[in-house]
Structures are given as C-alpha cells and as structure tokens.
C-alpha cells in the first residue's frame, strides 16, 4: 500500500511538472468551484434567497415591491420626553403600523387541496392569490 501511494505521488509530480499551465487552470477552476459552492450554500441557508426577487419566477411580481420611502418621517433618538412628544410618537406609530395590522398576510388558505384541485371533493375554482 505504501509503495502504491509513493508511486502515485511520483506520477502526480511528473504530470504537474510536464503540464504546469493545465495544472494552474485546473487548480484555479477547482478553487473557484469550492468558493462558489460555499457562497451558494450561504445564500440558500442564510435566508437571502427568499428575499432575492431578482430570481427567475419573480419577474411578474417585482413591480409590486414597495420601495423604501426616503421621505418617511422619523422619530429622533435624542431629546426630551413629555406628553406632547409621546402623543406625536403615538400618531406616527399608528400611521406606520396601520397597513400591517389591517393586512391579512398569509391568512388565506390558498394551499388547501380544494384550492389546488387535488382533493376528491369537487374542485373549487382556485382563488386569486393577490397580495
């Protein structure tokens, strides 16, 4: 077994010395592939893939993304606290949270077997899943 490993090592050395350029190219491709695999793994596992609307399949709905409002009123982190400030804060808070609290989000049961027409009962017309 030791002899076999030694022979393999010597053969590999000879190949590398004869074809240095090809070894460089193969080495670069291998290292790049490893980095790309690691990067794609991080992309999938970190949750970035779920918010990446540039992926194919999201083309039709990309325009529905709400753009961040740079003119949005902000509440300062410094300053005094009195009744007026808190009332102003509550007004801002109610305004900012109104849309989220009124939306039904993921409440609609759009994945039921009936909605997808994969149940035995009479298939309903699949609901229009507009956000």
């Amino acid at each position: 077994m030791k002899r076999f490993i030694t022979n393999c090592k010597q053969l590999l050395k000879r190949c590398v010395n004869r074809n240095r350029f090809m070894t460089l190219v193969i080495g670069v491709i291998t290292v790049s592939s490893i980095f790309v695999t690691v990067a794609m793994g991080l992309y999938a596992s970190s949750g970035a893939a779920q918010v990446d609307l540039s992926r194919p399949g999201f083309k039709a709905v990309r325009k529905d993304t709400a753009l961040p409002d740079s003119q949005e009123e902000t509440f300062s982190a410094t300053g005094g606290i009195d009744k007026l400030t808190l009332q102003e804060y509550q007004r801002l808070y109610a305004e900012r949270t109104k849309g989220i609290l009124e939306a039904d989000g993921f409440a609609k049961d759009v994945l039921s077997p009936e909605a997808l027409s994969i149940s035995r009962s009479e298939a309903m017309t699949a609901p229009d899943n507009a956000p």
Partner: protein
Amino acid sequence: MMKKIIIVMTVVALIVGTGHHVRAETRLPLSLDELETVRNNCVGAQSILYRIHANDGVLRVNLKRRYDSIATKLMAPLNSRMTLNRLDATKLVATTADYERELDNFRQLYQSYEETISQAIFFHCKSQPADFYDIVTGARDKRMAVDRSVKQLNSIIRQYAGAVKELEDSLDKRLQERS
C-alpha cells in the same frame, strides 16, 4: 491504518447518505381515486403553487421591510430616548426584544415554507402523487405557521403601543401630582 480510514469513511457516508432520504409519512393514506385526482390535476396545481410562491415572495419582502422599519425607526429611537431621559423603559425594551425574537422566528419559518413550496413546484408529481400531496400538505402547515408568526408580531406591535400609552398616562399622573 488505511483500513480504519476506509471503514470510518464508509460509516460516515452511510450516515450522511441515509439521512437525506427520510421521507415524510403520508398522514392519511390516499385512496386510488384520490391518487388519480392528484396525478391528473397536479400540473395545474404546480402552476398555482408557482403563482402563490411569487406573490408570497413579494409579500414577505414588503412585510419584512415594514417590520424592520418599525423596529429601527420607531421602537429603537424611543427606547434610546427613554434611557437618555433616565425613565423606566424596562417594559418597552422587553417588548422590543420579544419583537426582534419573533421577527427572527418569522424569517426562519418563511425560509422553511419557501423551501417546501419550491420543492412542490419542481416535484415529479405525475410519477409520485402521494409524495407530492405530502409535500403540499407540509407546505400548507408551514404557511399556517408563518401566518401565526405574523399574527404574533402584530400582537407585539399592539402591546408596544399599549406600553407607550401607559407611559403617557404615568407621565400625566406625575405632572398632576407635582402640580
């Protein structure tokens, strides 16, 4: 030495290899008629799933952006201002911590749901209708879990508003006591 390495690698490969092929048990076995219905309608179901996946993706991005905005532009500045004014912000900070925790939970739940629905979209449903049905059922359960997380976040948002109102009332009381 080589033998030991080979045995260890074989055992590791078996553990890793078998681990990936755990299949969810069908909750209720489907009848032949049901399997046939799934087989016949699954392609249409996959196109519906494709649209749902896209719409949910936008909903998730919009929701997360607004939730993040609430945390960074509303909750954090008030907590900071309370601390700077040496007022008791314990309840507000605790609610903010719950909010951040639930937001992280929402992100993880959505990720799991998105992976399952993506699996259903690209599954060979005609050849494996029972497994396809299981995956869709799993996606449905996960979507409901995401919905529960959204409701919990909304509840915490209301809780925070309640805490701010309490703070306003306590400040009012203090002013009245002084006068």
